């Protein structure tokens, strides 16, 4: 089995400037092809920049937008994950990541979890997606795509893996914060992300491809540090913090099979157990009948 060459486009998008970002995407897709990559991944909102606020509506694209078609057309014999603001037919705005292959848009993932706390205000400007599917790809394995915060909810990578994904792609615009010497690499955000992405790779016995942007939007600096992680949790590629660039690594897809035989966590998953218990938890949290407490979890109806 040929190794899969993965290219991480750790870019610094220009805020609100789709044309400039599109041009950069096209040139990096071409470079990735020249370097023999089979998969090139761009960061969250790489085509628009992150801190859009009311600009989101101005830069939104329908899936039949000619600019997306132009980018897709550049993916002959190549897979690319790109991210932009998607406007649906009923005019909802989503943070979307699309798999482009052989000239077509193969799959679109709409960001499921929109952080709206701390320095984040995403739900004010965007709608949350409500579907999570892995997708077949020309790479011969199914791919699971998540956007940034999606992977801070462990059910997402787990569901994607259960749905057949063997390569998990997370595209991010993670603002760096909590600068402190006690953290690995001096940055709390980077330390947390690394911990989580390595755990996801190991727990799902999948390859994790994490592409995080660099550059500055307003007050916020994005820290990069994109990674490719083997199903064993080992680092295959760790891109530098803060440097813009195209970083390339070879992934042995055969390692996924090897790891899943040696460490059959996915075989032993119990989705039916999860569903049963989740239904109970959902009912209890909502205070609905059907939960074991038969209503308000803290109320008198607990023992009926």
């Amino acid at each position, binding site marked *: 089995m040929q190794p899969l060459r993965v290219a991480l486009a750790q870019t610094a998008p*220009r*805020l*609100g*400037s789709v044309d400039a970002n599109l041009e950069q995407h096209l040139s990096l897709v071409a470079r990735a092809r020249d370097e023999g990559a089979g998969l090139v991944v761009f960061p969250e909102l790489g085509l628009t920049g992150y*801190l*859009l*606020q*009311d*600009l989101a509506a101005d830069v939104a694209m329908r899936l039949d937008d000619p600019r997306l078609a132009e980018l897709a057309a550049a993916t002959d014999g190549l897979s690319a994950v790109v991210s932009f603001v998607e406007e649906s037919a009923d005019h909802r705005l989503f943070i979307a990541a699309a798999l482009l292959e052989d000239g077509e848009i193969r799959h679109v993932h709409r960001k499921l979890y929109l952080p709206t706390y701390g320095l984040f205000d995403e739900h004010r400007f965007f709608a949350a997606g409500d579907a999570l599917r892995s997708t077949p790809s020309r790479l011969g394995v199914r791919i699971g795509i998540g956007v940034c915060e999606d992977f801070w909810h462990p059910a997402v990578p787990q569901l994607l893996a259960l749905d057949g994904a063997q390569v998990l792609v997370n595209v991010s615009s993670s603002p*760096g914060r909590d*600068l*402190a*010497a*006690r*953290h690995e*690499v*001096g*940055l709390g955000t980077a330390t947390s992300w690394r911990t989580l992405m390595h755990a996801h790779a190991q727990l799902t016995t999948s390859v994790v491809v994490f592409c995080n942007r*660099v*550059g*500055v*939007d*307003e007050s916020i*600096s994005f820290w990069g540090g994109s990674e490719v992680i083997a199903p064993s949790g080992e680092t295959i590629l760790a891109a530098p*913090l*803060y440097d813009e660039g195209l970083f390339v690594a070879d992934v042995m897809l055969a390692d996924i099979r090897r790891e899943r035989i040696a460490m059959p966590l996915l075989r032993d998953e119990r989705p039916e157990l999860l569903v049963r218990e989740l239904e109970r938890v959902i009912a209890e949290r909502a205070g609905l009948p059907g939960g074991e407490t038969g209503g308000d979890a803290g109320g008198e109806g607990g023992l009926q």
Partner: protein
Amino acid sequence: MSDHAAQPAEPLFELPSELAIDTDVARRVIGEFIRAQLGQAGFERAVLGLSGGIDSALVAYLVSEAIGPERLLCMLMPYRTSSPASTEHAREVVRRLGCASELVEMTPMVDGFYGRDGTPGAGGSEDLEASPLRRGNFMARMRMAVLYDRSVTWGGLVVGTGNKTESLIGYTTLYGDSACAFNPIGDLYKSQVRQVAVAMGVPEAIVRKPPSADLWPGQTDEGEAGFSYPQLDRLLYWWIDRRRSDDELGAMGFERSLIERVRRMVAGSEFKRQVPPVAKLGPRTAGLDYLYPRRRPGSSRDGA
């Protein structure tokens, strides 16, 4: 030095361990931030007020590192009562960095308003008795006016030099020293400013001397406020950054009276850290429901 080789060098300043940062990461983030702020606004140059104190000295070093000293203009703006040592320290920074500088005497501007030696100024005879606080604020605003004028003639953005500690306790003059186009050190506590300053080679005399607004002879920040910066920085960090309650802070050893005093200072200066409210009348109001990034396509000075 060699005489004392066996003894550990006396630290230049007291650094609470929880405030220790990786200065390489800080310099990298701040450098990217400075370049981005200027680039997105269409500027290549910067101007700042250099007092001879550690904050503005550090910002001069950071700007020089980010864009080159030849693009920085440092304005030295002493008043007749300013400490001569301050001006000497500022000159030393300029000499070491090799940046442009200009000295503007504030005395005619300030005394022209308040009067001097019994001769009233533009403000009238009662202003001969103006308090040091009023004079200090006026002076800070005159310096701001000079900086914004030189912003035009030098063709550079005004860089802020206030640190997080003084901003939080409100030890700043509204539309005076806090006025700027952007601030690279506004999220660094004084203890962290010192740490980065030492790492960058800011002259030791500047790092060592007691911080002072130098608005009247012999004034020091810590003398005026009645607490030390390391103590204040720690309290602010645990309260604000780490969300500790008063009880928890008390259990950590902070005195109740200090906690209460600092809490009042922070609450009482909230207005200084925010854009003034506009009476909401129309359908869309800047800052409320008209929310755009400061910089977007078309907003740069050169129209880019």
